């Protein structure tokens, strides 16, 4: 009981201080090499191995030894002494790097072994860890010295080797990883071809613009099948808020410039005035807008991980819009009213522009998830010069229709390098 109490008091007295640390791997059944520039090691390799097994159940059967080849070598003695002089809590790993080329070579030849540097200074045991990945300590800190060597070893293990140990790689696995190209490095694709479909929403009001730009259009109602206050925008006649479906095929060349051909459909009810009794004969009246267009893309790709590439892009282009009318009288109406027969007619085709921005998330090089937002316009197509003998300027119906859209789509990609 007394021993236990003493142990508790002792454990609470031992503390550790970490100077810096970067992520490093601990191997199962790994080799742990102890290195000191002092006269002798503060703990024996055997004691350290026992502590590893005591405190980390995933460590397997580690082997520990003193790194004699470094203890005897002039180059590593110089660096060891220098490190012992300069290791303190204000240091970072970068500042403590080994500058000598021969020392750097020694560290990179460690393969998957881990070197634990120990030196006694100011009544503390300074610790620094090295592995093959860099010629600088991966982690450093200090633990308290005491006569109980097992306690020192436990303290070191708890602070630096308490994490989950990974399976040691075989020679061929190590070779393969060493020869593997950098995951962040990818050749620019010569061509990236995609087909996709998206679903979105469009409305006349574009966010962050004043409402009074739209107020008249949105409040406008069609009376007696043709009468509206204004006919410049289609949104004087049709409901602007709508679901938009689209299918498209496109390609990017050399990761910069691209093009896309799209087909888009949206359905819009006519905004009939509910007070107008003329419409009592009507079952429904709506228009489908079919758009076909071509856009040019400017894009830039960021390779974030092996399996995800993010490419923001901007696009602009033109489109042709066709309005397909869908009108039906109630079954009991034998003869439609005169107003029905002389109802509004839209142009056969409207020509407009489309522009916007988007971002593509390409998973595993083939599966794309795309978000876009932009603005489309539809205008009257002026394919013929106006007749100078015409009596009056004809009424422009749908001379300028603007709406904003947002959509999300899925794509399949083919790449050529």
């Amino acid at each position, binding site marked *: 009981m007394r021993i236990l109490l003493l142990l508790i008091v002792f454990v609470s007295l031992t503390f550790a201080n970490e100077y810096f640390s970067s992520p490093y791997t601990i191997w199962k059944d790994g080799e742990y090499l102890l290195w000191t520039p002092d006269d002798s090691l503060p703990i024996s390799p055997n004691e350290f191995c026992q502590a590893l097994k005591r405190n980390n159940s995933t460590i397997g059967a580690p082997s520990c030894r003193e790194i004699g080849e470094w203890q005897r070598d002039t180059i590593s*003695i*110089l*660096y*060891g*002494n*220098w490190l012992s*002089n*300069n290791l*303190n809590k*204000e*240091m*970072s790993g970068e*500042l403590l790097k*080994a*500058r*000598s*080329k021969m*020392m750097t070579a020694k560290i990179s030849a460690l393969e998957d072994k881990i070197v634990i540097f120990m030196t006694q200074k100011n009544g503390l045991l300074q610790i620094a860890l090295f592995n093959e990945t860099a010629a600088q300590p991966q982690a450093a800190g200090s633990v308290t010295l005491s006569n109980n060597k097992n306690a020192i070893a436990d303290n070191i293990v708890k602070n630096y080797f308490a994490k989950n140990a990974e399976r040691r790689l075989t020679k061929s696995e190590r070779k393969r990883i060493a020869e593997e190209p950098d995951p962040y490095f990818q050749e620019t694709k010569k061509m990236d071809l995609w087909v996709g479909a998206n679903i979105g929403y469009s409305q006349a009001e574009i966010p962050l613009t004043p409402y009074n730009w739209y107020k008249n259009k949105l409040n406008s109602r069609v009376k007696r099948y043709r009468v509206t206050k204004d006919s410049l925008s289609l949104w004087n006649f049709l409901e602007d808020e709508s679901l938009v479906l689209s299918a498209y095929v496109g390609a990017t060349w050399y990761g910069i410039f691209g093009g896309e051909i799209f087909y888009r459909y949206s359905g819009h009810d006519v905004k009939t005035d509910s007070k107008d009794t003329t419409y009592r004969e009507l079952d429904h009246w709506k228009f489908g807008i079919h758009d076909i267009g071509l856009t040019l893309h400017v894009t830039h790709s960021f390779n974030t991980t092996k399996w995800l590439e993010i490419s923001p892009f901007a696009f602009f282009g033109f489109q042709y819009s066709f309005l397909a009318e869908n009108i039906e009288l109630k079954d009991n109406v034998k003869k439609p009213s005169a107003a029905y027969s002389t109802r509004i007619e839209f142009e056969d085709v409207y020509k407009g522009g489309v522009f916007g921005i988007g971002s593509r998330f390409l998973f595993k090089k083939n599966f794309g998830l795309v978000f876009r937002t932009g603005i489309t316009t539809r205008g009257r197509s002026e394919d013929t010069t106006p007749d100078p003998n015409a009596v009056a300027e004809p009424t422009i119906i749908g001379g300028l229709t603007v709406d904003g859209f947002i959509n999300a789509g899925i794509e399949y990609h083919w790449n050529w390098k």
Partner: protein
Amino acid sequence: MQVLNKSLQPGFEKKNLFDGVVGDLKTKKSFFLLLCACLFFSGCSGTSNWESSWPTYKTVLEKNDSIALIGRGDVFTLMRAKWYSNRLQIPMDSIYPFFENFSDSLIVKTLSESFSNITILEKKYQQRFPEETQKLDERIFIEGHFPEQGKSITLENKNTPRYLLLIHEITLGTDLNKSSFFDYSQKQNEIDQKKAPVNMSVIMSFTLWDNLTQVPLYSAISEQQRKIFPKTSLEDIADLLKLTIKEIPQKISSGVKK
């Protein structure tokens, strides 16, 4: 009177209040956006550090601390030699040796005034050390010869100086910009056009080295410009060089970490 009556109506006042709130929100929002923009742009236009101190550089150098100078006239480089040759009436074939000796005596003399316990080591002493780079900032590196880790420099009289002063290079030229020498993102920006020089300039890089722990206590790059007058003489050049070298003790003491 009518206006006053109108403003007393409850509806009118309510509307006014609402307008006020919206207005406030708008100003706040635009102010916030402006702040974001400012932060964004200040982040982009990063200023570079032209000096760096080791974390443990905390004690100011005493005047009688032992210090050894490495790097004298042998680190001096002359650019636009022909311009200087014409200006000073020194023939081209002797201008380089002339400036080497001239700068050597200036460096030695000026630094001896600043440090009482200074040892001047022989020329080309730094050639014994490996050539390396010393990082000052993300993009700024000094190239030079630095003593090895773990080995203190001992003088011929068996004394070990406390500090070493390493002068890596001193470059005299016209209209020089330290960015085009040391900032690796701007090293390619050479101007390929002839123009009349406006300033004489000196660029110098140096390091204060702790000889006991073998760490670079303080490194800096300094730049001095002086307007060229029609009668620019050797004295003006000497003044400019002296001014640059006198910066060393000043910078060393101002670089101490607080």
